[in-house]
């Protein structure tokens, strides 16, 4: 069931420090993501989960520390190479949606494929399949402004997976869903990841969602504490 490969992690963060103005979002966070594993990242609000995800996905550069993906230092990669790598290897579901408002659900999902050169009709066909997999049916023509929070999240997941990435980063992907819908989405995500060997970094504050993962890492004040230290630690 757990097809996590042994040996070298696919993605490794070491001692990440990231400061926003006067706020220290990360204060020496280290984390490994192995190929094919689903890792849940939990922690209190403001503990640095989204910032860590952004650093790992090469969206934000850390002030200090390293991010190594498949033998390459992401934090040192030139912007052009980095964005190319993000497009080919990563799929990201942002905490606050970030679908393109002018495009329909179908076009939002098809876009990453079209950017990679897939013909429009083929891209639409694949996009339709992914939307269906995440339970978005008959809403392909809705634009983000016309979607419910849950529809937007499912669409964002379909968009993150449509290119068959090696790593999916999902920031609270079930936050806007009721418990049954959340479960359906997580089941679809977990099955897909296990079938295709995709690694998933899953941020959630919901233990039932975290239970879909192989293991859990918990953030506390910008550092990763071990799984058995997942609670607020008395300092």
């Amino acid at each position, binding site marked *: 069931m757990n097809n996590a490969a042994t040996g070298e992690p696919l993605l490794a963060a070491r001692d990440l420090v990231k400061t926003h103005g006067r706020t220290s979002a990360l204060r020496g966070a280290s984390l490994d993501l192995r190929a094919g594993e689903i890792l849940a990242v939990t922690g209190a609000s403001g503990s640095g989960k989204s910032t860590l995800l952004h650093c790992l996905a090469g969206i934000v550069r850390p002030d200090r520390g390293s991010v190594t993906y498949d033998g390459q230092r992401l934090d040192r990669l030139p912007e052009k190479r980095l964005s190319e790598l993000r497009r080919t290897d990563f799929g990201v579901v942002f905490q606050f949606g970030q679908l393109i408002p002018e495009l329909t659900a179908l076009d939002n999902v098809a876009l990453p494929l079209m950017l990679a050169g897939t013909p429009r009709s083929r891209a639409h066909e694949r996009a339709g399949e992914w939307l269906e997999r995440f339970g978005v049916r008959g809403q392909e023509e809705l634009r983000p402004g016309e979607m419910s929070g849950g529809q937007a999240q499912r669409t964002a997941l379909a968009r993150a997976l449509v290119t068959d990435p090696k790593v999916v980063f999902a920031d609270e992907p079930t936050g806007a869903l009721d418990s049954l819908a959340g479960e359906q989405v997580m089941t679809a995500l977990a099955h897909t990841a296990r079938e295709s060997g995709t690694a998933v970094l899953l941020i959630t504050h919901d233990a*039932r969602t975290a239970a879909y993962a*192989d293991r859990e890492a918990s953030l506390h004040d910008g550092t990763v504490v071990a*799984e058995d230290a997942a609670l607020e*630690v008395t300092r």
Partner: protein
Amino acid sequence: MIAMSTRHILLGLLASGPSHGYDLKRRHDARFPQARPLAYGQVYTTLQRLVRDGLAEVEGTDSDGGPERTVYRTTDEGARELSRWAGETAPPAPFVTNEIFAKVVVSILGGGDPAAYLRAQRAAHMERMRELTAVKTAKGADLATVLSADYALNHLDADLRWMDTTAARLTTLTAEVDAA
């Protein structure tokens, strides 16, 4: 409390047709896969009590090649009792008698390390939740399995939320004591 629900669960199983004790035990364990399996002794004692109270009766015996087995069926009164029980609301857990809660309280009173206990308990809960999630999402899981895993998962989740809140309270409490 436990005896009462076993009575009604056996009545419920008998509602779909006459059955002997062994068969009832087997069907119980299949219907409630995440529950503690019923002991044979408990099944037979409960059946005898159902008969004594007029809720079930002996239909006859059935050997089916093997040893003779007493076959039970529900009575009209049993059917009425079952539908009464099934429609009656359960008391919304008014009493907190939980081992986790007790350990935390005892640990606070005795100057122990409740935070360390809570961390370890949280890890154990998460491990069990991952197991249950795997059982539930396995291809071909039947409805009984999904429903009982859901029930267990939601209760473990409630424990976890209580543990998270308690751990946070302990941090605040410690800070207040340190500041005093």
